[in-house]
């Protein structure tokens, strides 16, 4: 049971990453690799600040801001200096590796003896339940600590998802969606599309960095290598989410990205339980995204082929 709750918790934390990837890849059709660096950046900033005594919520907010800064850099490279979108992301991601090391001062910052959002929500949970350390749910013994962390994270995700949904329906948010949809049209309506892209990639990386900050607090350390392959992870979640909701309605796609992330984490946990080597995880993830990208094409071709026959 503890394992299952842990899986859900990580799935929820990474759904913020999925939302970030959703913004860049789906709304802007901008393949933003910066995210690999932003995950670590968020973790590094939050961990370092908390070790130096900053309050956990403030440190997480700072991580969000740092991610936005990284995204702004990528967006600027792409729009102002006309560098290819992938390359812009790669440049910033590479630079972030050194920056992250500088922020942390070493390659790994442990958070075991530090007050974090996780320990705080554990305390709140224990207090709410009058000091009990576990309760039973449908016959399962559930640790209060695990349950309160999961509730806190789920609450945070619901809040962030709702905010994102509302934002995308404001005048500014609609202009951003239209920018990814049809640049010619949005320019003709007086929107500076370069600014929209910069802002969008900034928000995207803010989400990703926040996800990294929460992940570091949950697992109890920030590590310079924790961001590797995270873009593909997020993309896999978004793709699964799209398959789950099967529509491009805005609210549902956001819910889908969150559900996709949790489900993907669940699949991974099951696979690991069945004996998949953790070393193969990234390979399997990449393979999965590859399949998800080509299967629709393949099906379309097949359908066309049978229509001709």
């Amino acid at each position, binding site marked *: 049971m503890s394992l299952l709750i842990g899986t859900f918790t990580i799935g929820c934390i990474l759904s913020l990453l999925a939302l970030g990837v959703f913004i860049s890849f789906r709304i802007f059709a901008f393949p933003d690799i910066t995210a690999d660096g932003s995950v670590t950046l968020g973790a590094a900033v939050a961990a370092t600040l908390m070790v130096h005594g900053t309050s956990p919520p403030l440190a997480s907010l700072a991580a969000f801001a740092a991610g936005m800064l990284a995204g702004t850099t990528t967006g600027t490279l792409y729009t102002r200096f006309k560098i290819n979108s992938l390359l812009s992301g790669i440049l910033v991601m590479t630079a972030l590796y050194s920056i992250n090391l500088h922020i942390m001062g070493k390659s790994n910052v442990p958070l075991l003896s530090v007050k974090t959002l996780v320990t705080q929500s554990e305390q709140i949970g224990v207090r709410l339940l009058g000091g009990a350390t576990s309760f039973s749910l449908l016959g399962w013994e559930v640790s209060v600590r695990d349950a309160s962390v999961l509730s806190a994270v789920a609450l945070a995700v619901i809040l962030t998802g709702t905010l994102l949904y509302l934002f995308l329906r*404001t005048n500014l*948010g*609609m202009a951003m*969606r239209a920018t990814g*949809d049809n640049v*010619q049209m949005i320019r003709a309506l*007086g929107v*500076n599309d370069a600014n929209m892209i910069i802002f969008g990639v900034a928000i995207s990386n803010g989400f990703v960095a926040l996800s990294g900050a929460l992940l570091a607090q949950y697992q109890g350390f920030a590590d310079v290598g924790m961001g590797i392959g995270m873009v593909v992870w997020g993309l896999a979640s978004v793709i699964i989410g799209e398959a789950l909701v099967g529509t*491009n309605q805005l609210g549902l796609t956001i819910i889908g990205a969150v559900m996709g992330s949790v489900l993907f984490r669940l699949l991974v946990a099951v696979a690991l339980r069945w004996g998949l080597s953790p070393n193969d995880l990234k390979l399997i993830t990449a393979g999965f995204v590859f399949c998800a990208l080509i299967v629709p094409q393949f099906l379309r071709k097949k359908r066309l082929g049978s229509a001709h026959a």
Partner: protein
Amino acid sequence: MLEIQNVSKTFHPGTPNEVRSLRAVNLKLATGSWVIIIGTNGSGKSTLLNAVAGTFLVDEGRLELAGRDVTGWPEHARAQLIGRVFQNPFSGTSPSLTIQENLSLAARRGQRRGLGWGLKESLVGRMRDEVARLNMGLEDRLGNAIGSLSGGQRQALTLLMATWLRPELLLLDEHTAALDPKSADLVIALTEHVVTRDKLTTLMVTHSMQQAASLGDRLVMMHRGQIIHDFEGAEKRRLRPDDLLARFEDIRRAEQLDESAAEMLAEQYV
């Protein structure tokens, strides 16, 4: 209203693909006039429209719109003065956004876009009225993604969007060329209605001699990046499609003469 002074534009200068699309074009539009541009393929008629819209910056010359020098303005800045409808019916709308979201984007053309709610109740009410006037039954489908509509419906909506806030200048770039005849007639009727109702200063490129003869109060004909004919007033009103076709025939003959003359010279001297 609009003044195009000595505007030139060359694409790919200094390469084998060099194209001198506009050669010192001069055109002055009076407020409220509706000018039709026709011309052969590659004559620079769409390029002229794009130069005004700011799709690219011109090499030489000056563009003045509503008393302001817009020569160096980027495209999105000029949009506060200009409404546009493109040849491709898919270019003017955002497919994954709904009809009402597209319209609400248009309702803030050239204005600041902040965190205000995009779909205000009052705005949606006006949308329903305006869309109902298109007689396409779209007023009950305002929440549908615009990508699900036909080209004709999308072009009608693009026109509505371009003129939602009264533009100083309306640019129509062969906006019925990609539509089926019935939709084209519908969009043209709509265009006529809006332009005359709001007395819009309009610059319209068309390939249809029928439209060129029947619409507008002035007609210019372009060839090889220059304006070669300019019909106004009574002269414009007398023009028939056949007259225009005859003019094109003249151009063709002149070109053939050039070619055969060049061939003859080559035979004699090379």
